[in-house]
């Protein structure tokens, strides 16, 4: 019986009591529920598929295989970590929506058909936007609204794509999308929007840094990585994705130089890291695809850790701009050290998790002799270390003293960061445990002398470059425009202009109509007051009109 329990359904139903539970009971249930779900995922056997036929559609709401399991495990783990991190938050709306969001993400990775996928895709959106809105300020509300609109559009494209796919193939099964024409492109663009592939990426660095401190952890883990999963399933070996991925990896790096907000910097590095995964999907070899799954797994954990560190700084100081931070390591040493474990992981330092996964994707480019891809992905990885591993911690925790004297972050935050850091470290030391979960068995060894030598040179000399350019790297109190500018400025002006034009037109029409009405009213009054309708009538005219009426009655009413 247990194998019939869909983890997403358990999480959806289990989340509801969080709306009422208070205090200790709420805290206990908030951690127990994702643990139950994680245990449930562990009981699912690869190969299990539950089918159902609804309105002549063959649905499979639960399809378990190695690919879905590796994503489900890490979603389960990050749900536990992020809930521990948000234990101190007393806001039922956030807890319920976070659980719904997690449930929908699990629903997506277990969906064996496009209809189930679409339904969970939309639940993910509706649940996740509350993690932005519950920051409860005007900026977050507007960013959330833009997030909702962009993803709403993406959802519509997916819906249209699913219909087109059904019309073209007669099936809604979710496997490789190998159909020509509209279905291919509609579904692809919908997936690319959620994966934050430029130019469809601007929602991510726009909204994530405005979300609540704890909500960002869920956001960073779920939306882009479920999109990577769907790309991995639907579009492996699509050449276009290789270069889109490379562009993404570099795009995030360029913006990370420019931005001042630490959570926005990390958000741009989500784009950069997902770029490796998108490129890996495009390469489509067994090594590349396994690298994608491995990198998604490690990325979810270290990015959660990094954002938890940045979130702890924001929570304790109320500041998140590099130009307003500095010298915090004395006051938040544990947060600093745990953050650095995440930073060394994302930078692919040996012994940390990123090293065993990112190098798989780069290696996959090398074994296929893709020189350009190899060099550009390596370039992006230097940028990752430069910003996440050096610039952000240097100007936040070291560097000049900003005058903040915060306490260390709350215990639950430190525990959550500690769990994530431990996992980053364990995966780095025992990569074979992760490799055993991967969809394709690959003979890959991260820890060869050649890899270690190259990686350490690359990283340490990037560090040298950082200290040489240190003066120019502090955060500047500016914002950097991104493609969201198009809908935030010209788009806004166009809509406001259209609104004003319609208002003017509407007012002109009303004024004209009212003037005409007033004129008619005046004429009627004048007509009445003139006494003309009440004047005395001549008898001859009366007799004639009576005769006319009688004649008409005879013709139309009383005739034979």
């Amino acid at each position, binding site marked *: 019986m247990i194998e019939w329990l869909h983890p997403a359904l358990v999480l959806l139903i289990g989340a509801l009591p969080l709306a009422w539970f208070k205090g200790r009971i709420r805290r206990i249930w908030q951690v127990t529920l994702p643990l139950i779900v994680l245990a449930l995922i562990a009981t699912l056997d690869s190969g299990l598929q539950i089918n159902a036929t609804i309105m002549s559609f063959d649905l499979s709401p639960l399809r378990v295989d190695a690919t879905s399991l590796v994503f489900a495990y890490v979603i389960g783990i990050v749900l536990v970590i992020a809930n521990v991190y948000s234990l101190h938050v007393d806001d039922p709306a956030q807890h319920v929506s976070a659980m719904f969001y997690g449930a929908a993400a699990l629903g997506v990775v277990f969906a064996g058909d496009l209809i189930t996928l679409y339904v969970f895709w939309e639940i993910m959106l509706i649940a996740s936007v509350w993690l932005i809105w519950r920051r409860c*300020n*005007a*900026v977050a509300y*507007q960013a959330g609204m833009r997030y909702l609109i962009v993803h709403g559009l993406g959802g519509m494209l997916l819906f249209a794509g699913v219909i087109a796919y059904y019309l073209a193939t007669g099936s809604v099964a979710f496997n490789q999308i190998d159909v020509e024409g509209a279905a291919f492109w509609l579904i692809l663009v919908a997936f690319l929007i959620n994966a934050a592939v430029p130019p469809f990426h601007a929602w991510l660095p726009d909204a994530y840094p405005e979300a609540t401190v704890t909500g960002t952890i869920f956001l960073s883990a779920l939306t882009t990585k479920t999109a990577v999963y769907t790309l991995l399933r639907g579009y492996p070996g699509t050449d276009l994705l290789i270069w889109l991925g490379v562009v993404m990896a570099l795009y995030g*790096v*360029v*913006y990370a*130089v*420019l931005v001042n907000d630490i959570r926005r910097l990390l958000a741009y590095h989500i784009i950069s890291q997902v770029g490796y995964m998108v490129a890996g999907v495009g390469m489509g070899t067994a090594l590349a695809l396994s690298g994608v799954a491995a990198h998604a797994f490690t990325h979810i954990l270290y990015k959660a850790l990094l954002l938890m560190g940045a979130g702890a700084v924001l929570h304790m100081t109320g500041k998140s701009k590099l130009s307003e931070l500095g010298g915090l*390591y*004395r*006051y938040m*040493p*544990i947060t*600093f*050290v745990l953050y650095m474990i995440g930073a060394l992981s994302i930078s692919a330092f040996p012994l940390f998790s990123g090293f065993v996964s990112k190098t798989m994707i780069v290696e996959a480019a*090398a*074994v296929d*002799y893709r*020189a350009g891809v*190899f*060099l550009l992905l*390596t*370039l992006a990885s*230097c*940028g990752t270390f*430069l910003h996440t591993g050096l610039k952000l911690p240097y100007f936040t925790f*070291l560097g000049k003293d900003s005058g903040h004297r915060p306490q260390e972050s709350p215990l639950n935050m430190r525990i959550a960061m500690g769990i994530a850091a431990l996992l980053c470290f364990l995966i780095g030391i025992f990569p074979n445990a992760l490799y055993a979960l991967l969809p394709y068995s690959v003979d890959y060894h991260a820890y*060869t*002398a*050649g890899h270690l*030598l*190259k*990686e*350490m*040179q*690359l*990283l*340490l*000399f*990037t*560090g*040298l*470059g950082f200290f*040489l*350019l240190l003066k*120019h*790297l502090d955060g*500047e*109190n*500016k*914002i*950097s*425009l*991104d493609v969201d500018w198009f809908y*935030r*400025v010209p788009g*806004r*002006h166009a809509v*406001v202009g259209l609104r004003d034009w319609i208002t003017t037109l509407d007012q002109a029409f009303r004024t004209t109509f009212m003037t005409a009405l007033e004129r008619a009213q005046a004429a009627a009054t004048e007509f009445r007051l003139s006494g003309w309708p009440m004047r005395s009538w001549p008898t001859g005219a009366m007799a004639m009109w009576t005769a006319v009426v009688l004649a008409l009655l005879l013709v139309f009413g009383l005739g034979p």
Partner: protein
Amino acid sequence: MSLGRLLEWLVEQKRWMTWVTLVVMALLVLLDVLKTPDYERFAWDSIGGFAAFYGLFSCILIVVISKAIGYLILYRKPDYYTRHGERSDD
């Protein structure tokens, strides 16, 4: 606070640690020059110390290009979007 003390002590050893790191970096390059390369997939695989050069080059390239793009096109004042009709928190 012992972890904080330890970190403070490490920061005080900055100069010493910098030298150790620089020596390690020199040794890594030397080792790479002397070692027979593992791969011959790309032309640069056989150049000793290429990764070191590429790391430094990447770092400088990224900073120079990004800052140039920032100053030429992308940088705006923090209240840019507020001036274009969005509400701020204040």
